[in-house]
């Protein structure tokens, strides 16, 4: 019997449940003996010239080892030159050019929280005390706190660039003739607000410089990419070892590593002392990259019978103070603009502006949720205008099952899908018709608590960089155990369990004899890591292929040991024994075969690349109750059908879906990063940032189908981000649906009681959106 698809509880858990994980702050490595604490002095203003930094008083405090600023970084080579006309370079830490993001602020600060100086002390409390005494004088510049302010180009973040618009891209959106002949045309703005990634463990780094080698422990999703980033310190990759210990969540905001980590690693090298930095939640909420922050203008047109003829999406990305992934996020939003629909005409473009906010980068979904959120709002507008049920409008416009593989008008090459079945599964399981009847009854009675139903069908691109691939090495040892080395990086997803299952499936070596190792560049120099829902399909496929190679090697050795033909030896994967076909009396275990191999180890090292990305899909239905007197929203039910191909382990895939749904619902219901007009963050503690809790969520109702892809040997697609992508518009649509009969057409996210109450009141006064 295959182990794949069965419920296997995680091998990671016993340690985490009894001793707790070993996160950066828990490391007790000998190299970190006597490590000093790093405390950052961060900009307290959004936009200013630094006129002076006086560190003398801080330096005289007890326990202070050093106070370091950009001026001390004379031992760091200048960043490599870039083309003066080039847009901001992609990547977590672009270090050169006119859009330069320095490691520590040099003469300008561009967001509250930007690192200005580092204080090294013997203890944490001493660091907090001393950091307060570093006197930074600022000459305040006019703040650019929003997209609207950035577009005015009155105050420039990078004067040498001459504009706040860092990048423009996408296609032409000027030809209005695509809307010719449309009986129903709707347009409007949709805000996809800035949200915090908020992993429970914030950013953390420890670093030690010994004998010309820098070892850096980072709470990261990508040890190998982090190592490349750290070469900015003037070191060759071989001089750097990056280790990802247990990582307390990432959600995209720990892709690679930040300038703060580069600064901490440099401080260790510069002073020769091991250094540890673990950010506070305040630092996390102003310093860690945030997500979304897009403003959309959308126009949709079609016929009165529900067929959409034309769709236009104009995206403006707020990249914050520095354009970390500026081009990449809205490019994905453009690519996925038409989503699950066969729209005959699609136009999309984007523009990236810098503002005096925390830099924006990937957050669970990263560019794709924004595309889905808007098309799903626009379809609801269109359905309302055409007087049709939202489900019917979706059905009419879906790409049909028989149209796959399907090339969208924006150039996405979808592999497989069955969008209509996913929606039907949800409608049936939820009892859609009954819910609509209940809604109708409540409306007729004029109940205070109204019911809202929100649909969102989605498709997303996973493993968006399939050609970058992923590494996987499988070793089988003479004691019969196996070790897997993966370039993929776990921070809660369950890689260790899932990848061991893949080995067990092919080699018959029991799960408890398969060790999975990740996140150490000395052991795994090549690898990419985890983002874009790529782990199983690329990293898992590498492990799968490496297992097959090991099996081939073993078959040859077994044949030789048996003195039989290779064609006659077989592996019984139930027992992990090699036998001669038809002769069950003689058998060889993995240990015996490995012992006969060169170096007494069977080994295969694979870099799996795919030609194309994969496209999981599904439909989510949200059911909410809205108190029309207070505006309070209660999420009653959330029903989803998600299809990411064959399931390796149902508890792992469902765990990803649960977490994704909660984060998606959080954006729709309560979470938002806010700034005042001067660019001061208003949500810099968890007392202010309304992170979603258990009390605001129901248990979720999950349905599943398994449509394989032909783009990797496992047939799998990614699932890490699907929940988030579908949940946000499903919940937002449900909230608006609950009060649509009162004349409300749209409510921006998050749909807080105040926003909902205001929308109802404005609609009744006839001034609604």
């Amino acid at each position, binding site marked *: 019997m295959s182990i794949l698809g069965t419920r296997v509880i*995680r091998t990671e858990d016993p340690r985490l449940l009894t001793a707790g*994980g070993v996160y950066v702050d828990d490391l007790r490595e000998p190299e970190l003996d006597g490590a000093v604490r790093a405390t950052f002095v961060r900009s307290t203003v959004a936009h200013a010239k630094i006129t002076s930094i006086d560190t003398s008083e801080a330096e005289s405090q007890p326990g202070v080892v050093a106070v370091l600023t950009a001026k001390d970084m004379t031992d760091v080579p200048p960043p490599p030159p870039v083309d003066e006309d080039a847009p901001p370079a992609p990547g977590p830490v672009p270090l050169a050019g006119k859009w330069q993001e320095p490691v520590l602020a040099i003469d300008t600060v561009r967001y509250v929280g930007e690192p200005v100086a580092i204080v090294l002390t013997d203890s944490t409390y001493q660091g907090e005390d001393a950091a307060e005494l570093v006197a930074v004088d600022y000459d305040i510049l006019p703040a650019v706190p929003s997209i609207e302010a950035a577009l005015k180009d009155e105050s420039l973040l990078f004067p040498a660039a001459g504009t706040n618009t860092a990048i423009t891209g996408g296609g032409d959106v000027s030809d209005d003739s695509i809307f010719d002949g449309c009986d129903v045309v709707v347009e409007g703005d949709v805000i996809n607000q800035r949200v915090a990634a908020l992993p*429970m463990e914030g950013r953390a780094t420890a670093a030690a410089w010994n004998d010309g080698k820098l070892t850096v422990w980072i709470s990261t999703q990508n040890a190998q990419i982090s190592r490349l980033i750290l070469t900015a310190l003037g070191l060759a990759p071989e001089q750097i070892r990056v280790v990802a210990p247990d990582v307390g969540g990432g959600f995209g905001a720990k892709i690679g590593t930040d300038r703060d980590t580069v600064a901490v690693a440099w401080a260790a090298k510069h002073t020769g002392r091991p250094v540890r930095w673990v950010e506070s*939640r305040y630092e996390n909420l102003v310093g860690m990259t945030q997500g979304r922050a897009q403003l959309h203008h959308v126009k949709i047109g079609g016929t009165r019978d529900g067929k959409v003829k034309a769709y236009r999406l104009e995206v403006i990305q707020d990249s914050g103070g520095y354009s970390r992934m500026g081009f990449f996020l809205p490019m994905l939003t453009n690519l996925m603009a038409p989503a699950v629909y066969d729209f005959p005409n699609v136009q999309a473009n984007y523009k990236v502006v810098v503002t005096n906010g925390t830099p924006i980068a990937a957050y669970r979904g990263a560019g794709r949720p924004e595309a889905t959120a808007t098309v799903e709002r626009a379809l609801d507008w269109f359905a309302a205008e055409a007087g049709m049920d939202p489900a019917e409008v979706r059905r009419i416009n879906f790409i049909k099952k028989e149209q796959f593989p399907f090339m969208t008008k924006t150039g996405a090459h979808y592999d497989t899908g069955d969008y209509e079945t996913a929606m039907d599964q949800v409608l049936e399981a939820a009892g859609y018709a009954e819910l609509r009847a209940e809604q109708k009854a409540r409306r007729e009675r004029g109940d205070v608590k109204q019911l809202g139903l929100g649909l969102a069908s989605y498709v997303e691109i996973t493993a968006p960089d399939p050609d970058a691939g992923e590494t996987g090495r499988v070793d089988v040892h003479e004691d019969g155990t196996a070790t897997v080395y993966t370039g993929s990086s776990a921070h809660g997803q369950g890689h260790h369990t899932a990848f061991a299952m893949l080995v067990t499936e092919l080699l018959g070596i029991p799960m408890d004899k398969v060790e999975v190792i990740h996140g150490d560049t000395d052991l795994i120099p090549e690898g990419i890591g985890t983002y874009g829902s790529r782990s199983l399909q690329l990293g898992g496929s590498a492990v799968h292929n490496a297992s097959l190679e090991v099996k081939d090697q073993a078959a040859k050795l077994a044949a030789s040991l048996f003195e039989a033909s290779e064609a006659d030896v077989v592996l019984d994967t139930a027992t992990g024994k090699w036998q001669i076909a038809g002769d069950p009396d003689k058998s060889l275990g993995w240990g015996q075969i490995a012992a006969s191999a060169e170096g007494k180890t069977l080994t295969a090292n694979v870099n799996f690349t795919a030609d194309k990305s994969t496209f999981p899909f599904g439909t989510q239905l949200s059911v909410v109750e809205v108190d029309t007197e207070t505006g309070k929203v209660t999420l009653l039910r959330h029903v989803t059908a998600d299809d990411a191909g064959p399931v390796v382990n149902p508890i792992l895939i469902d*765990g990803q879906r649960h977490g994704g749904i909660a984060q998606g619902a959080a954006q729709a219901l309560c979470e938002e990063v806010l700034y005042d007009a001067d660019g001061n963050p208003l949500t810099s503690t968890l007392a202010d940032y309304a992170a979603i809790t258990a009390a605001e969520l129901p248990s979720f109702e999950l349905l599943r189908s398994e449509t394989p892809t032909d783009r990797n040997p496992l047939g799998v697609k990614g699932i890490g981000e699907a929940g988030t992508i579908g949940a946000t518009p499903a919940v937002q649509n449900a909230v608006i649906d609950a009060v649509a009969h009162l004349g409300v057409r749209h409510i921006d996210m998050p749909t807080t009681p105040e926003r909902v109450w205001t929308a109802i009141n404005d609609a009744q006064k006839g001034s609604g959106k």
Partner: protein
Amino acid sequence: MKVDLTVNGKNVTADVEDRTLLVHFLRDVADLTATNIGCETTSCGACTVLMDGESVKSCTVLAAQADGREVTTLEGLKGADGGMHPVQKAFHEEHGLQCGYCTPGMVMAIASLIKENPSPTEAEVRSGLEGNLCRCTGYHNIVKAALSAAEASK
């Protein structure tokens, strides 16, 4: 000041700064690192431990306030048979954890919750966990684990 408390059944005594938080005492003095720090504002519950059997957020309790008391952290939580506590077992069985960072606080909070209310409803579990944030699980399996641990503890 001198602080003298019992942590997981063992006496721990140290001279610490007056302002030392219990969570720092546990992590840095007692060298028990399972208890994590998530926010410093009593909002996230990652640092939840038991003090004289009741759950407290150790980031907003001074070590001095724990003087003379008994503190239990995840490392000290045990089932009746000396193995995993029913809450720990349920988290494993129901996939109640992913990255594991909120887990020690969640487990301690739930252990305390079902001691106080041995038969909680789903709604009671959800409102009881309002002060403990998890970013990975969507709380779905944490709630399931709490209910199943309550059942198993009977």
